[in-house]
């Protein structure tokens, strides 16, 4: 029975928001991180998981934070919270190290990679420049950076996101720490890169016999690497336990909800369970499954052929270089069905969606809707079609005008397209729609900033519904939402499709969500369509190597891969 490396006791953190209000972020949590183990700290936004880790490192802003002195954080026997500044700084970076979510902004842009890694070596290990450089080269090699000799003098902006994260890891490991705190290290990375980084972390941990505190919002991600899991919600710990037990027999309702709100890869319930179901204990044991796929007699509502979109960039003195964002995309969308479009960043999927709505002007290709090529119409001729094909954007915080009330947001499209005989009728329609998407009637007079992310997406959906569109493009519409909220919005979208026969083009990088909601799936890579086919079939038997890599990168639950855990 090894002694705990890190022991957190009764940690209580509050923030002062303004002169009168304080916000309790962490409400007295206690947990331990044993030696030579990986502990996952899982929670949605606002759970307090990041705040706890920042408190351990002493990185919370001093002016507005108050940490209850009754709590303690024991690292190797010493109480880190009550150490004098200088001693704590000696500990951080050497025995405890941390890596963050956004590697691009977490690295200093004006210093070379080698300088930044060397800095910890010179400061904590007392190395001189030559020794530090040699050690840095070894570290870069260890984390898998190709050609360390060249990269050591490179600047962060000259590297990809995955490489930057590797550099962060190298910097954290430089002084052989006993504990590595990783705060959402893969959230900002593509799913294939995510897999590589996770494997790297696991391998390094094993080799150096250090402990890792892995913080994430994605419970599904930790199945492969964690020994123990701690689930947090609203500043409190809901459940702790060994990873296999958490996944197979979760005790707490919230943990169960987190596990099951994610769209499963192997089933397709008629409706996704939401947190409220679990907290209230009303869960269906064997939910009805939904069948998906295009039927041969389906009515084709949109027929896209050879869509192409290029951007021109300044090149040299007078020339311009062509950047092809969308190369040659063709697909058919059946009425009342969903086409899922999946790909990593840079695949061109979002550009394609925007081009279909003529928010970008297409370079070539056609989009046939009821026999008319939407892309060939003049701006004026296209105007009446605008109400029939609509879009919901990714960022719920940017897609609603902050200066308009919800009522104004909903009335505008109706006024522009002459829906409803007069304003009174329009207001009534707007109120009805608000109710339909699950918002209270008082929302009509409110401003967007008073709503949460999920609620704003509902307002955006209501805005689209005012025009009764036939096709809805969902551009990463649920990607910015927490898992539980995501489930609610997906359910809403599905209900609307069932009720109104809407056709969706669902763009996302999240493979599980796409499989759940789509009838057909189109895989894109670097602007091209790599594979397109029936959703279930494609996930079961991917044909193209890229599709196989993509699907292989989906994190599995612990039962599947026993060997790769350390």
């Amino acid at each position, binding site marked *: 029975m090894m002694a705990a490396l890190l022991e957190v006791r009764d940690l209580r953190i509050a923030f002062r928001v303004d002169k009168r209000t304080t916000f309790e972020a962490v409400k007295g949590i206690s947990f331990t991180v044993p030696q030579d183990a990986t502990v996952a700290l899982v929670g949605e936004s606002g759970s307090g998981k990041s705040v706890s880790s920042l408190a351990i*490192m*002493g*990185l919370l802003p001093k*002016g507005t934070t108050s940490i209850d002195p009754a709590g303690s954080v024991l690292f190797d026997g010493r109480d880190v919270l009550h150490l004098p500044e*200088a001693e704590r*700084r*000696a*500990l*951080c*970076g*050497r025995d405890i*190290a*941390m890596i*963050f979510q*956004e590697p691009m*902004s*977490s*690295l*200093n*842009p*004006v*210093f070379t990679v080698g300088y930044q890694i060397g*800095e*910890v070596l010179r*400061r*904590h290990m007392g190395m001189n420049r030559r020794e530090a450089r040699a050690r840095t080269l070894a570290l870069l090699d260890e984390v898998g950076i190709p050609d360390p000799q060249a990269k050591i003098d490179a*600047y962060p*902006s*000259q590297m990809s996101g995955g490489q930057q994260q590797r550099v*962060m890891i190298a*910097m954290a490991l430089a002084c052989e720490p006993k504990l590595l705190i990783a705060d959402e290290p893969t959230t900002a990375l593509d799913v294939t890169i995510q897999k590589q980084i996770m494997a790297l972390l696991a391998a390094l941990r094993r080799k150096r016999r250090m402990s890792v505190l892995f913080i994430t919002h994605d419970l599904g991600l930790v199945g492969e690497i964690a020994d123990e899991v701690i689930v947090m919600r609203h500043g409190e710990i809901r459940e702790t336990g060994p990873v296999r037990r958490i996944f197979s027999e979760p005790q707490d309702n919230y943990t169960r909800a987190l596990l099951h709100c994610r769209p499963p890869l192997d089933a397709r319930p008629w409706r996704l369970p939401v947190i409220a179901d679990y907290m209230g204990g009303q869960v269906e044991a064997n939910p009805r499954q939904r069948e998906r796929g295009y039927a041969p007699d389906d009515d084709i509502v949109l027929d896209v052929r050879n869509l192409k979109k290029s951007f021109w960039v*300044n090149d*040299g*003195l*007078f020339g311009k270089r062509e950047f092809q964002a969308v190369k040659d995309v063709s697909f058919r969308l059946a009425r009342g069905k969903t086409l899922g479009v999946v790909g990593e960043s840079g695949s061109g999927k979002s550009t394609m969606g925007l081009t279909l709505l003529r928010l970008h002007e297409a370079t070539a290709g056609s989009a046939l809707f009821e026999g008319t090529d939407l892309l060939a119409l003049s701006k004026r001729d296209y105007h009446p079609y605008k109400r029939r094909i609509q879009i919901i954007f990714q960022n719920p915080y940017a897609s609603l005008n902050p200066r308009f009330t919800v009522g104004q947001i909903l009335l505008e499209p109706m006024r522009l397209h002459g829906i409803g005989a007069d304003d009174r009728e329009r207001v009534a329609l707007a109120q009805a729609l608000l109710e339909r998407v699950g918002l209270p009637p008082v929302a009509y007079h409110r401003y967007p900033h008073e709503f949460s992310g999920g609620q704003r997406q509902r307002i955006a959906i209501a805005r689209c519904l005012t025009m009764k569109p036939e096709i809805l493009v969902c551009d990463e519409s649920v990607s910015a939402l927490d898992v539980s909220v995501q489930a609610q919005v997906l359910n809403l979208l599905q209900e609307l499709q069932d009720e109104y026969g809407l056709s969706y083009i669902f763009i996302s990088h999240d493979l599980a969500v796409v499989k759940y909601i789509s009838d057909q799936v189109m895989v894109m890579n670097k602007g091209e369509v790599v594979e397109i086919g029936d959703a279930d079939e494609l996930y079961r038997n991917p044909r193209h190597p890229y599709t196989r890599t993509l699907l292989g990168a989906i994190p599995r639950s612990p039962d599947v891969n026993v060997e790769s855990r350390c």
Partner: protein
Amino acid sequence: MPAFILRRLWQMLPTMLGVVLLVFLLFNWVGGDPAYILAGKMSSPEAIANIRRQLGVDEPYYVQLGIFLKQIVTFDFGQSWATGEPVGQVIATRLGPSLTVLVPMTVLETLIGVALALAVAFVRGSLTDRAVMVACTVGMSVSILVYIIVFQYGLAYRLGLFPVQGWGDNFADNLLRYAPLPILIGLAVSIAPTLRLYRSFVLDEVNQDYVRTARAKGLPERRVLWVHVLRNAAIPIITHVMANLPALLIGAFLLERFFGIPGIGREVILAVERSDFPVIKAVTVYVAAATMVFNLLADLLYQAVDPRVQLS
């Protein structure tokens, strides 16, 4: 890189032409007939017509524009209407005194501004920070005229620490005897706005993620500010200093006037008072050209100092 410079120089041409056009419009069209100004109040029509012919203002506008362009290209703006001194010489001789005051002032102002900005950033949010900011605001509210009048009266006239006015013949004399008081006043006036601006640059950096990483590495706060933050904040600071240099040439005109320093700024004031068009035109065109060149240099410096920016 050469392609970048060429393209920028190419882009400067329309701007330069625009400046030339603007100056021409102002002076040759709006400015009215200079012949009357030159001839004086009591002159005969022949004298006026004579002057007109000499100046070329009886020609159609496009010819006048041509003359103006030729003047710019050959650096020959004729002679000052007030003193008869060749304009080129006027500018050349006045540049030295202006720089003798400006260069030390700029250097000192930048160094002190940066040091103070970092010091204030160290205690940001505290009462000291707020007090310093309010003091800056108050300092900026007092007109530069008041500073000059009071300092000149107090330190020079009453206490005799500096000469009240004047300029000497040799460089050392100018720099050490006549320049200090103007430099001191210039510093007093410019410290407050400079400090505010640099403080905002520094604070923009202090809230960035990489500062959190530097602290996580266990670096002391002093190093975080003076090495990590300063290096990043230096970018906007440098570009700010570079881009403002040409404006400074004219900006010191009040100091030059009060202290009798024969610099470019004072020359401009005199020229405006005396309606000495050639001098004003020449100075305007040259300063505009200098501003564009300095902007280009600032951009190049920016590229050199910030690795994120790619030359395109």
